[in-house]
């Protein structure tokens, strides 16, 4: 009986801990937004972070997009053939990528490549007392270190998701038209008829912006909060990837439901 009570207490503790963390995250976001004007005055800091988060993620995003698009094309063709609806392949590939896979897979890749790097960087700066040094020099580390990385993530994510989708569609075209032999006109024509800027593409962009904000916030928070030791930094990095991934999938569900209901016609 006491074992059960102990387990329940542990579970309750985890839940309340999680809720408290959510509140802390909200306050942290508030602090970031508060110091954003200060960070914008040093635009080159944000530009630099866009380079490290966005540009350096291009390789993995583009390659993954290409492969996902190609696989989607193959699998989609397989299924559509049963209903003699191969011509719809273009729509299937495009909608899957633009509405879901681009933002979600792009977000997961961004979290594991850029998110973990951000956490490690900030955590290391904390461990080597660089953040303290900044504080003692009367420079707020949130304005100078945290906010630029946050906004770089928010800006980079939609661009990366769009590139993922674009390359995926290109990969789908390569497999569908060049390899399998579907008519190019049907491929692009059906796609253009079926994919609407509003709501399909804009919903995808909204999702990628939300995911970018979530991943960036989690990454900077874990880094800023990390224990200033080697294990502290490494466990914070792992936590960033895990929590970001879960957050992306959960937010994806919430956003999809919201968008589905809102547009259902």
């Amino acid at each position, binding site marked *: 009986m006491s074992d059960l009570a102990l387990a329940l207490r542990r579970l309750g503790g985890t839940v309340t801990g999680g809720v408290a963390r959510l509140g802390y995250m909200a306050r942290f976001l508030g602090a970031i937004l508060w110091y954003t004007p200060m960070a914008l005055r040093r635009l080159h800091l944000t530009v*630099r972070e*866009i380079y490290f988060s966005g540009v350096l993620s291009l390789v993995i995003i583009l390659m993954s997009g290409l492969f996902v698009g190609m696989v989607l094309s193959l699998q989609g063709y397989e299924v559509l053939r049963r209903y003699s609806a191969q011509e719809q392949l273009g729509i299937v590939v495009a909608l899957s990528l633009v509405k879901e896979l681009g933002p979600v897979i792009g977000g997961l890749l961004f979290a594991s490549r850029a998110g973990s790097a951000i956490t490690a960087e900030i955590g290391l700066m904390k461990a080597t007392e660089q953040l303290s040094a900044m504080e003692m020099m009367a420079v707020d580390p949130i304005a100078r270190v945290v906010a630029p990385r946050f906004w770089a993530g928010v800006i*980079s994510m939609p661009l990366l998701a769009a590139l993922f989708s674009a390359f995926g569609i290109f990969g789908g075209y390569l497999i569908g038209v060049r390899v399998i032999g579907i008519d190019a006109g049907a491929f692009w024509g059906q796609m253009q008829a079926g994919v609407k*800027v509003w709501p399909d593409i804009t919903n995808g962009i909204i999702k990628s912006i939300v995911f970018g904000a979530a991943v960036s916030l989690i990454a900077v928070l874990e880094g800023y909060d990390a224990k200033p030791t080697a294990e502290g930094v490494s466990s914070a990095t792992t936590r960033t990837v895990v929590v970001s991934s879960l957050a992306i999938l959960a937010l994806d569900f919430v956003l999809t439901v919201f968008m589905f209901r809102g547009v259902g016609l």
Partner: protein
Amino acid sequence: MNRAAIDLWVGVFVAVGLGAILFLALKVGNLLTLDQTPSYHVEASFDNIGGLKVRSPVKAAGVVVGRVESIRLDPKTYAAMVTMRIDRDYSFSKDTIASINTSGLLGEVYVGLDAGGDAAMLNDGDRIAKTQSAVVIEKLISQFLFDKAAQGGAGK
């Protein structure tokens, strides 16, 4: 990495990213379709529009020449009033037949235009006289059964 190089790469990245979004919007989606091209309106009345929706295509000989702009129910005749917007590049004779078709068995519903031989052309605001409603599968089946029943009865 000096600042100039970083700025350059970030500029390229943002440009390419925005380009991808534009690509998706234009080539993949249908941002710049006939909505921008000059067009004129034509009306048609149908007993049953089936699965026709606003923004469904209007095709002639399989080529998209316009879009359905609005669908209303005429309160007097209880028929569906469909307003179509047609690309100005295409003119249709006054005796054009408008029919509601489905591309393939399960495909999308569209308005098909069969041009006639009349020398006079449809103008903005004109109404198409001859229309053919959508084939509703259930009615077809019940018609078939009814015919079958009538045959059987007549044969006795």
